[in-house]
């Protein structure tokens, strides 16, 4: 009964909390202020608590569904837990070096795993994708293919660190920079469009609720403007430090 009541209250207040924290965070576009600070601290606390809860829950579900089934798995799980506990030795002045054991295991394992795939995904597949004929069916395709090959080669040369960009390399380096800037421009536009879509989504979310949400915006804006006005007046009255 009580839990149902709490759930209904939270459901009813949910949109208000959303609007309030959204506007508090947006207020940073004006300047850093106490509203933003409040939202920031709340977000930090909630996110940290959520991370701890989520990880503990994951650990428990792993134990229940996978690692408690056979004695070998129980032993392996216990070993992993023990290795994990070594992290806490970071707080011991005498045995702090023990935390490096789980760290080295984690870093070594994942770097080894990445080597297995990276040489294909970021090297050989890219090279194979550039194997395109310089003479294509249409003049436009021919031009396109030649341009792609030149761009890839010049950009690769740009990242050759043990050669100074002098002589012919100076010109390939300039061409590579223009190539990359063209790519970055396209990526910038693409990402900004996505962000605009997100902004519009949030604006619609706010506008679709009763206009009383505007009261939150008015309170935040008014307090910011008034506090700024008071600060400017106070500063105008105070004598300049170091002055006569």
């Amino acid at each position, binding site marked *: 009964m009580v839990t149902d009541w709490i759930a209904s209250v939270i459901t009813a207040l949910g949109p208000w909390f959303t609007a309030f924290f959204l506007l508090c965070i947006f207020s940073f576009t004006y300047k*850093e202020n106490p509203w933003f600070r409040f939202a920031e601290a709340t977000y930090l606390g909630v996110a940290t608590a959520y991370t701890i809860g989520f990880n503990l829950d994951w650990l428990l579900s792993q134990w229940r569904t996978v690692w408690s089934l056979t004695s070998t798995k129980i032993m392996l799980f216990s070993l992993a837990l023990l290795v994990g506990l070594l992290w806490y030795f970071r707080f011991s002045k005498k045995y702090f070096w023990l935390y490096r054991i789980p760290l080295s295991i*984690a870093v070594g394992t994942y770097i080894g795993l990445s080597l297995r795939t*990276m040489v294909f995904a970021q090297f050989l597949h890219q090279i194979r994708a550039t194997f395109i004929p310089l003479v294509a069916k249409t003049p436009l395709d021919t031009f396109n293919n030649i341009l792609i090959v030149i761009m890839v080669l010049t950009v690769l040369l740009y990242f050759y660190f043990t050669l100074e960009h002098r002589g012919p390399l100076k010109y390939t380096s300039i061409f590579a920079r223009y190539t990359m800037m063209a790519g970055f421009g396209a990526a910038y536009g693409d990402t900004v469009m996505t962000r605009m879509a997100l902004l519009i989504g949030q604006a619609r979310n706010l506008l679709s609720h009763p206009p009383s949400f505007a009261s939150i915006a008015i309170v935040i804006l008014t307090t910011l403007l008034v506090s700024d006005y008071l600060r400017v007046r106070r500063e105008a009255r105070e004598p300049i430090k170091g002055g006569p």
Partner: protein
Amino acid sequence: MFNRNLLFYLLHSPDLVQSSPERANPREKFYLFIITFYILGKENMSVLQSGRVSGLLTLIYIIAMVIYFTYRAARGKVPRLRRIPGLDAIDEAIGRAAEMGRPLFISHGIANMTDATYGPQTIAGLGVLSYVAEKCSELGARLYVPVRQLVIWPIAVELCETGYKKAGRPEDFNPTEQVRYLSSDQFGFSSNYMGWMWRERAAANIMIGAYWAESLQLAETGARIGTIQVGGTANIHQIPFFVAACDYALIGEEIFCAGAYLSKDAEMIGSLAGQDMGKLLGIVLILLGVIFVTAGSDILTKILSW
């Protein structure tokens, strides 16, 4: 299918092992290992898998080049690195922070070190942190390090501690104050980073590592409070934001040579020369591949798919 009976027979063969595999002597164990490896290779899992041989050979070539050039550099033949303005600007940023008496922020991105794809960027960022901590301590600039990943916090602390010790001022370093774990949540981290930077009126902000949507939030905040900013990432979609909002931008691969470039460590520079040989291999393969494909032959494509 894996031939279990054959393996069982071989492991328990009286000719091969006198008693049992557990009590076999080292020589017998070696034979057992070879036989097991052979059976596994023949019956179940091939040692050389089709489609992965070219990758193995490429890896061996690059690793061999890195080892060779590192060895050469250790013996005094250090290759010269070309100038990278973004990395030269780091000293300028530290100097500015020291002169203004305002703090310098340095972040190594938000990816975990253990992340298979993005981890190397974090390691590159930590390489820069090591250098910056030492320089900040030397010049008396206040250093702040926002951290997103729990695993990285102790490493960042240790790097800073070492830097301060190298500069002869370990007492100036306060780990809990200067290296702060903010939040594992992406935007929890970025909102706190933004607020912290603003409240402290940072003089400089260095961001080198893997960044995603928070890149522009951080860089834009730094620009609004007038910091000198150096940003670098290998995440293609985030480089444009650093190029647009930072004073100096490091593009992609440039962040991986930051540690070697700043520390001027001979062996690290040697390893960079080894990596350059990998790029040279790429250039040669592309040129050959394009020529072959234009001539109507796909032999190189097949070799690379081997």
